[in-house]
């Protein structure tokens, strides 16, 4: 079968990858229908996010059940499903304390598209427990967004927004991730959202989406505001979510926090980079900085939220600038994203 893999020279299309087989009696072979390209795939491409050499990429996956092993009872052939790439074992310390991504048998150590073969392929093998059924009115493309949606919900678990009416929320970065978060928070009624987006072109794109209760600003304008308000202890944000991975943005993100504010790092910073953090300031103002990269025990919740958003007409992709590609065209997909011709790309391996 065809599959897009990671190698030391970069990504490549393998036309003769073996079709996967059952691994145990709860295996399911999936006919992959849609897989999203994520910001992390770009980090992988650059060698910043470690993956297994030769792994098939693609971790935002949906498809149809193709074949089931003898022990599978919950799913049947042809069933439409979304795939949880980082399910934990449910039986170790980390799984028991809601940190399943650090499970040594599951979690990030089994990550489809990073450690184990993922969805940039015609077929993939998963465990039946990784599957979540999806309704017919949710397209495969939308269903593949379960993975980013569940990690978005996880951010809100580790750095909660305490009060939807009053908390001031800042999203740094208006790419795919920032927009998803903006869309969701706006949908659930968070009233004070600001988004920083450097490029004027993207700022206009977001402004045209006409979100209510959302302010879109440039990084320079927000920094001026911060400097102007240096004597005002009430200025700032209660929640800052960084989607950029940019060192300077993160260092500023801490400064933009109000007392007791929380900075969640969702974008992946570069390796070996540190920020200088004022430790007295952090303590006396009870600020918090936390990593928030994965999904943890909330994949099903992610699917449910996606269904709700879709049925409320809040996942209308045309507004975002979205396109479908074949596996053969994967390079064009990455390039179109890099050139900012589109905001989101889906690979449909079965076409």
């Amino acid at each position, binding site marked *: 079968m065809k599959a897009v893999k990671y190698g030391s020279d970069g990504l490549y299309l393998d036309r003769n990858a073996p079709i996967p087989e059952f691994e145990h009696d709860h295996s399911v072979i999936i006919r992959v229908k849609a897989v999203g390209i994520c910001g992390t795939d770009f980090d992988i491409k650059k060698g910043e996010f470690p993956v297994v050499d030769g792994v098939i990429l693609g971790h935002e996956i949906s498809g149809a059940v193709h074949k089931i092993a003898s022990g599978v009872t919950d799913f049947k052939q042809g069933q439409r499903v979304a795939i949880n790439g980082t399910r934990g074992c449910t039986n170790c*310390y*980390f799984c*028991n*304390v*809601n*940190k399943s*991504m*650090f499970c*040594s048998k599951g979690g990030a150590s089994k990550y489809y598209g990073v450690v184990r073969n993922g969805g940039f392929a015609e077929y993939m093998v998963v465990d039946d427990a990784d599957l979540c059924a999806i309704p017919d009115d949710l397209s495969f493309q939308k269903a593949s967004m379960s993975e980013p949606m569940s990690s978005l919900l996880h951010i809100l678990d*580790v750095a909660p927004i*305490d*009060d939807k009416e*009053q908390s001031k929320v800042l999203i740094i970065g208006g790419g795919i991730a920032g927009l998803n978060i903006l869309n969701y928070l706006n949908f659930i009624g968070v009233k004070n959202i600001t988004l920083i987006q450097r490029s004027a072109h993207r700022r206009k794109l977001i402004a045209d989406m006409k979100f209510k209760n959302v302010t879109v600003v440039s990084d320079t304008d927000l920094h001026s505001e911060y400097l102007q308000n240096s004597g005002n*202890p*009430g200025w700032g944000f209660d929640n800052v979510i960084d989607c950029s*991975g940019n*060192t300077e943005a*993160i260092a500023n993100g801490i400064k933009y926090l109000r*007392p*007791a504010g929380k900075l969640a*790092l*969702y*974008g*992946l*910073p*570069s*390796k*070996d*980079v*540190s*920020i*200088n*953090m*004022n*430790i*007295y300031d*952090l*303590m*006396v*103002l*009870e*600020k*918090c*900085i*936390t*990593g*928030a*990269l*994965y999904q943890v025990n909330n994949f099903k919740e992610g699917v449910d939220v996606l269904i709700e958003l879709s049925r409320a007409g809040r996942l209308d992709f045309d507004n975002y600038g979205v396109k479908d590609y074949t596996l053969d065209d994967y390079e064009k997909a990455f390039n179109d994203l890099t050139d900012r011709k589109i905001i989101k790309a889906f690979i449909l391996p079965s076409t």
Partner: protein
Amino acid sequence: MKAIKYNKTRGLYMEHNVSIPEIVNSNNVILKMLAAGICGTDLSVSKGSFPVPDDTTLGHELCGVVHKIGSKVKNVTVGQRVAIRPTKGCNSCYFCDTNIPNVCPKGGIIKDRGFGLDGGMAQYILVDDVDVHQIPDDLTSSQAVLIEPLSCLLNAWKISNVASKDHSKVLILGGGIGGFHLLNYLDFIEVKNLTICQRSEDRRKRIEKLGYKNVTVVSDVSLQEEYLKHSEDELWGFDNIIDCTGNPDAIQTAYNYLRPGGRFVIYGCCPANTFIKVPIQDLTFKEKHISGSFLQPYTYGAAVENIVKLARSGRLKLSNYGVQEYSIDDYKSGFADLESRKIIKGILLID
């Protein structure tokens, strides 16, 4: 009356002719002071590294006797012995509304007696009725002094958000009064995997002599050796670290001791304008948290209850803990003995 004050030119000094405070509002209470603790932060104030307005009377760990009450005061009567909460919020801002009055820009440290307002290292102090809590006769005034630090430690413990008292691995950095008081309390509430790191041998010996069952006492050197021995072991480390040293170098080193998903709470007061380097990719990948903890948000009442329980279960024999009492006239010895680490806490007896 006598009062211990600080100003930038004179340093720490005793003023003899301070006017005795009078009732101003109908909810005021005037206390005749019995005991005031000397805290590590008071030491920082006396050395100029923790800023307070000039000529503020120090003392925020307090026990006194009700001397005069305003016309609307109902919760205490003249002659009762009470513990005194030194700070509160303004009750009418976002922070007070969301239960974090300790970072209230109009309350918090600004109205903290002993820092922003005159404190209790004096013969009398003026507070409000909501600030005083009755204490039982079997609790000594010196034991009551330990209520305020426990109220702040309860905040740090809450922010630590420990996942499992039985399984989470907890490290306390520093065996001064902060670390020791926390250790004593956590052992009492049956946190099972406690490690305390203390540099000096004499302080380690004091803790070891008390024979806590579930506590490992280590030096900074041996802990670093452990870390280096386990540098390949992803599972080595601590789920929760609470810094009680206020030493940026100790904090910087101990960051490495966090396990994946670990939470680091900065409780000890570092000097103003000190920084640590935070490796942000590691923080993101391993979803680590660093949070500040400052003062106490509504934990004072719980601290009163817990101090009474600790005392009644024989866990607050101050002679065992390197805590020494001084007359207020001998305040300089108290500060000096704390500075030279002869003691872990000094208590000024005032009456």
